[in-house]
Protein backbone atom coordinates (compact mmCIF):
# COMPACT_ATOMS: atom_id res chain seq x y z
CA UNK A 1 0.00 0.00 0.00
CA UNK A 2 1.45 3.30 -1.08
CA UNK A 3 0.76 6.04 1.46
CA UNK A 4 1.37 9.75 1.48
CA UNK A 5 4.60 9.11 3.37
CA UNK A 6 6.06 7.38 0.32
CA UNK A 7 5.30 10.34 -1.85
CA UNK A 8 6.59 12.88 0.64
CA UNK A 9 9.82 10.94 1.10
CA UNK A 10 10.28 10.78 -2.67
CA UNK A 11 9.58 14.48 -2.89
CA UNK A 12 12.09 15.18 -0.10
CA UNK A 13 14.73 13.11 -1.89
CA UNK A 14 14.18 14.95 -5.17
CA UNK A 15 14.20 18.32 -3.44
CA UNK A 16 17.46 17.56 -1.68
CA UNK A 17 19.05 16.28 -4.86
CA UNK A 18 18.06 19.56 -6.47
CA UNK A 19 19.53 21.59 -3.62
CA UNK A 20 22.78 19.60 -3.73
CA UNK A 21 22.92 20.20 -7.46
CA UNK A 22 22.54 23.95 -6.99
CA UNK A 23 25.30 23.95 -4.40
CA UNK A 24 27.88 21.83 -6.19
CA UNK A 25 27.49 22.82 -9.82
CA UNK A 26 29.14 25.86 -11.38
CA UNK A 27 27.36 26.01 -14.72
CA UNK A 28 24.53 28.53 -14.55
CA UNK A 29 22.23 26.54 -16.84
CA UNK A 30 22.68 23.34 -14.86
CA UNK A 31 22.11 25.23 -11.62
CA UNK A 32 18.90 26.53 -13.09
CA UNK A 33 17.85 23.02 -14.12
CA UNK A 34 18.47 21.87 -10.56
CA UNK A 35 16.16 24.66 -9.39
CA UNK A 36 13.53 23.32 -11.78
CA UNK A 37 14.07 19.92 -10.20
CA UNK A 38 13.36 21.45 -6.78
CA UNK A 39 10.14 22.96 -8.09
CA UNK A 40 9.13 19.58 -9.50
CA UNK A 41 9.72 17.98 -6.14
CA UNK A 42 7.46 20.58 -4.58
CA UNK A 43 4.78 19.89 -7.18
CA UNK A 44 4.88 16.21 -6.34
CA UNK A 45 4.30 16.93 -2.69
CA UNK A 46 1.42 19.29 -3.54
CA UNK A 47 -0.32 16.72 -5.70
CA UNK A 48 0.22 13.94 -3.19
CA UNK A 49 -1.17 16.03 -0.33
CA UNK A 50 -4.12 17.09 -2.46
CA UNK A 51 -4.91 13.47 -3.29
CA UNK A 52 -4.78 12.21 0.26
CA UNK A 53 -6.64 15.24 1.65
CA UNK A 54 -9.37 14.90 -0.99
CA UNK A 55 -8.70 18.50 -1.87
CA UNK A 56 -8.18 20.34 -5.14
CA UNK A 57 -6.12 23.24 -3.85
CA UNK A 58 -2.87 21.34 -4.24
CA UNK A 59 -3.50 20.64 -7.89
CA UNK A 60 -4.39 24.25 -8.50
CA UNK A 61 -1.26 25.36 -6.74
CA UNK A 62 0.75 23.12 -9.07
CA UNK A 63 -0.88 24.83 -12.01
CA UNK A 64 0.34 28.19 -10.70
CA UNK A 65 3.78 26.86 -9.85
CA UNK A 66 4.17 25.70 -13.43
CA UNK A 67 3.20 29.12 -14.73
CA UNK A 68 5.74 30.72 -12.45
CA UNK A 69 8.36 28.21 -13.55
CA UNK A 70 7.64 29.06 -17.17
CA UNK A 71 8.00 32.78 -16.49
CA UNK A 72 11.19 32.21 -14.54
CA UNK A 73 12.58 30.04 -17.32
CA UNK A 74 11.96 32.72 -19.93
CA UNK A 75 13.54 35.48 -17.86
CA UNK A 76 16.34 33.35 -16.43
CA UNK A 77 17.46 32.02 -19.76
CA UNK A 78 17.36 35.54 -21.19
CA UNK A 79 19.61 36.69 -18.36
CA UNK A 80 21.98 33.80 -19.05
CA UNK A 81 22.07 34.71 -22.74
CA UNK A 82 22.78 38.35 -21.85
CA UNK A 83 25.64 37.32 -19.56
CA UNK A 84 27.05 34.99 -22.17
CA UNK A 85 26.94 37.69 -24.80
CA UNK A 86 29.13 39.99 -22.72
CA UNK A 87 31.34 37.44 -21.03
CA UNK A 88 31.46 34.32 -23.24
CA UNK A 89 31.03 32.07 -20.23
CA UNK A 90 28.30 31.01 -17.86
CA UNK A 91 30.52 29.41 -15.28
CA UNK A 92 29.62 31.27 -12.12
CA UNK A 93 33.18 31.07 -10.81
CA UNK A 94 34.28 33.29 -13.68
CA UNK A 95 31.42 35.73 -13.24
CA UNK A 96 33.03 37.67 -10.47
CA UNK A 97 33.79 41.31 -11.07
CA UNK A 98 32.24 41.99 -7.71
CA UNK A 99 33.45 40.10 -4.71
CA UNK A 100 30.78 37.76 -3.42
Amino acid at each position, binding site marked *: *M*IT*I*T*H*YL*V*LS*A*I*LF*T*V*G*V*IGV*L*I*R*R*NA*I*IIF*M*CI*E*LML*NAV*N*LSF*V*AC*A*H*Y*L*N*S*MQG*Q*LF*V*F*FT*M*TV*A*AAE*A*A*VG*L*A*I*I*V*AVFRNKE*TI*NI*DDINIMKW
Partner: protein
Amino acid sequence: MLAYLFYIVAAITVTTAVYLIFEKNPVFGALYLIQTMVSLAVLYILLEAQFVAAVQIIVYAGAIMVLFLFVIMLLNLDIGEETKNALPYQRIPAILMGIALFTIICIVIRSKLLQGKQDQYTTAFVQGVGNTKLIGNLLFTEYLLPFEITSILLFVAAIGAIMLAKRKL
Protein backbone atom coordinates in the same frame (compact mmCIF):
# COMPACT_ATOMS: atom_id res chain seq x y z
CA MET B 1 0.42 -3.95 -8.67
CA LEU B 2 0.24 -0.18 -8.46
CA ALA B 3 2.72 -0.32 -5.61
CA TYR B 4 5.30 -1.92 -7.89
CA LEU B 5 4.64 0.74 -10.48
CA PHE B 6 5.24 3.39 -7.86
CA TYR B 7 8.56 1.88 -6.82
CA ILE B 8 9.77 1.46 -10.40
CA VAL B 9 8.82 4.99 -11.39
CA ALA B 10 10.22 6.45 -8.19
CA ALA B 11 13.51 4.67 -8.80
CA ILE B 12 13.68 6.08 -12.33
CA THR B 13 12.88 9.56 -11.06
CA VAL B 14 15.58 9.57 -8.42
CA THR B 15 18.17 7.98 -10.72
CA THR B 16 17.68 10.51 -13.49
CA ALA B 17 17.69 13.35 -10.96
CA VAL B 18 21.02 12.16 -9.57
CA TYR B 19 22.37 11.77 -13.10
CA LEU B 20 21.38 15.36 -13.78
CA ILE B 21 23.47 16.82 -10.99
CA PHE B 22 26.58 14.87 -11.97
CA GLU B 23 26.26 15.17 -15.73
CA LYS B 24 28.95 17.27 -17.41
CA ASN B 25 27.19 17.84 -20.69
CA PRO B 26 24.22 20.22 -20.26
CA VAL B 27 22.35 18.64 -23.17
CA PHE B 28 22.32 15.25 -21.47
CA GLY B 29 21.45 17.00 -18.22
CA ALA B 30 18.38 18.50 -19.84
CA LEU B 31 17.39 15.10 -21.24
CA TYR B 32 17.69 13.51 -17.80
CA LEU B 33 15.53 16.27 -16.37
CA ILE B 34 12.91 15.63 -19.06
CA GLN B 35 12.89 11.97 -18.07
CA THR B 36 12.43 12.97 -14.41
CA MET B 37 9.48 15.12 -15.39
CA VAL B 38 7.86 12.41 -17.48
CA SER B 39 8.13 9.92 -14.62
CA LEU B 40 6.64 12.50 -12.29
CA ALA B 41 3.73 12.76 -14.71
CA VAL B 42 3.21 9.01 -14.27
CA LEU B 43 3.10 9.51 -10.52
CA TYR B 44 0.53 12.29 -10.98
CA ILE B 45 -1.68 9.85 -12.85
CA LEU B 46 -1.31 7.38 -9.99
CA LEU B 47 -2.46 10.24 -7.75
CA GLU B 48 -5.50 10.83 -9.95
CA ALA B 49 -4.38 14.23 -11.12
CA GLN B 50 -4.81 13.72 -14.83
CA PHE B 51 -4.88 17.36 -15.80
CA VAL B 52 -1.69 18.13 -13.91
CA ALA B 53 -0.04 15.09 -15.50
CA ALA B 54 -0.96 16.29 -18.97
CA VAL B 55 0.21 19.82 -18.26
CA GLN B 56 3.40 18.46 -16.74
CA ILE B 57 4.27 16.82 -20.05
CA ILE B 58 2.99 19.56 -22.33
CA VAL B 59 4.27 22.60 -20.48
CA TYR B 60 7.16 21.38 -18.39
CA ALA B 61 8.74 18.62 -20.41
CA GLY B 62 7.53 20.10 -23.66
CA ALA B 63 7.81 23.86 -23.55
CA ILE B 64 10.11 24.77 -20.70
CA MET B 65 12.69 22.08 -21.29
CA VAL B 66 12.74 22.74 -25.01
CA LEU B 67 13.55 26.33 -24.16
CA PHE B 68 16.43 25.07 -22.04
CA LEU B 69 17.72 22.85 -24.81
CA PHE B 70 17.39 25.68 -27.27
CA VAL B 71 19.47 28.02 -25.12
CA ILE B 72 22.08 25.33 -24.40
CA MET B 73 22.52 24.75 -28.09
CA LEU B 74 22.47 28.46 -28.87
CA LEU B 75 25.31 29.11 -26.46
CA ASN B 76 27.23 26.02 -27.62
CA LEU B 77 29.09 25.64 -24.36
CA ASP B 78 32.40 24.03 -23.77
CA ILE B 79 31.77 20.82 -21.85
CA GLY B 80 34.92 20.48 -19.78
CA GLU B 81 34.68 24.03 -18.52
CA GLU B 82 33.70 23.52 -14.95
CA THR B 83 35.75 20.47 -14.03
CA LYS B 84 38.80 22.38 -12.83
CA ASN B 85 38.32 23.46 -9.27
CA ALA B 86 34.96 21.90 -8.68
CA LEU B 87 35.93 19.43 -5.97
CA PRO B 88 36.55 21.73 -2.97
CA TYR B 89 33.06 23.08 -3.35
CA GLN B 90 31.38 19.76 -3.57
CA ARG B 91 32.06 17.89 -0.39
CA ILE B 92 30.88 20.15 2.40
CA PRO B 93 27.49 21.22 1.02
CA ALA B 94 26.81 17.72 -0.23
CA ILE B 95 27.47 16.24 3.21
CA LEU B 96 25.40 18.95 4.90
CA MET B 97 22.50 18.41 2.55
CA GLY B 98 22.77 14.67 3.06
CA ILE B 99 22.30 15.25 6.76
CA ALA B 100 19.43 17.62 6.06
CA LEU B 101 17.77 15.04 3.83
CA PHE B 102 18.09 12.37 6.50
CA THR B 103 16.48 14.73 9.01
CA ILE B 104 13.63 15.59 6.67
CA ILE B 105 12.89 11.94 5.96
CA CYS B 106 12.95 11.10 9.67
CA ILE B 107 10.57 13.97 10.34
CA VAL B 108 8.21 12.89 7.58
CA ILE B 109 8.18 9.24 8.61
CA ARG B 110 7.76 9.92 12.30
CA SER B 111 5.01 12.50 12.11
CA LYS B 112 1.34 11.75 11.88
CA LEU B 113 0.36 13.10 8.51
CA LEU B 114 -3.06 13.98 7.20
CA GLN B 115 -4.48 15.54 10.31
CA GLY B 116 -5.69 18.42 8.23
CA LYS B 117 -9.20 19.08 7.15
CA GLN B 118 -10.49 16.61 4.57
CA ASP B 119 -12.08 18.44 1.70
CA GLN B 120 -15.09 17.37 -0.37
CA TYR B 121 -13.22 16.34 -3.50
CA THR B 122 -13.04 12.59 -3.05
CA THR B 123 -11.93 10.37 -5.91
CA ALA B 124 -15.48 9.34 -6.68
CA PHE B 125 -16.64 12.95 -6.72
CA VAL B 126 -13.81 14.10 -8.96
CA GLN B 127 -14.39 11.23 -11.36
CA GLY B 128 -18.06 12.12 -11.49
CA VAL B 129 -17.38 15.69 -12.59
CA GLY B 130 -14.10 15.21 -14.40
CA ASN B 131 -10.74 16.38 -13.16
CA THR B 132 -10.16 18.96 -15.88
CA LYS B 133 -13.64 20.40 -15.66
CA LEU B 134 -13.33 20.74 -11.91
CA ILE B 135 -10.00 22.53 -12.16
CA GLY B 136 -11.44 24.82 -14.80
CA ASN B 137 -14.41 25.64 -12.61
CA LEU B 138 -12.21 26.42 -9.64
CA LEU B 139 -9.79 28.53 -11.66
CA PHE B 140 -12.52 30.78 -12.90
CA THR B 141 -14.33 31.10 -9.59
CA GLU B 142 -12.38 30.65 -6.40
CA TYR B 143 -8.95 31.31 -7.88
CA LEU B 144 -9.91 34.01 -10.34
CA LEU B 145 -7.63 36.67 -8.90
CA PRO B 146 -4.35 34.70 -8.96
CA PHE B 147 -5.34 33.35 -12.36
CA GLU B 148 -5.69 36.84 -13.75
CA ILE B 149 -2.53 38.07 -12.07
CA THR B 150 -0.72 35.20 -13.78
CA SER B 151 -1.39 36.96 -17.06
CA ILE B 152 0.61 39.94 -15.79
CA LEU B 153 3.34 37.55 -14.71
CA LEU B 154 3.61 36.04 -18.17
CA PHE B 155 3.44 39.48 -19.75
CA VAL B 156 6.34 40.63 -17.57
CA ALA B 157 8.29 37.53 -18.51
CA ALA B 158 7.73 38.18 -22.21
CA ILE B 159 8.81 41.80 -21.92
CA GLY B 160 11.82 40.77 -19.88
CA ALA B 161 12.98 38.07 -22.23
CA ILE B 162 12.85 40.49 -25.14
CA MET B 163 14.50 43.31 -23.19
CA LEU B 164 17.41 41.23 -21.97
CA ALA B 165 18.12 38.94 -24.87
CA LYS B 166 17.29 40.92 -27.99
CA ARG B 167 20.43 41.88 -29.81
CA LYS B 168 19.37 45.35 -30.83
CA LEU B 169 16.57 47.34 -29.23
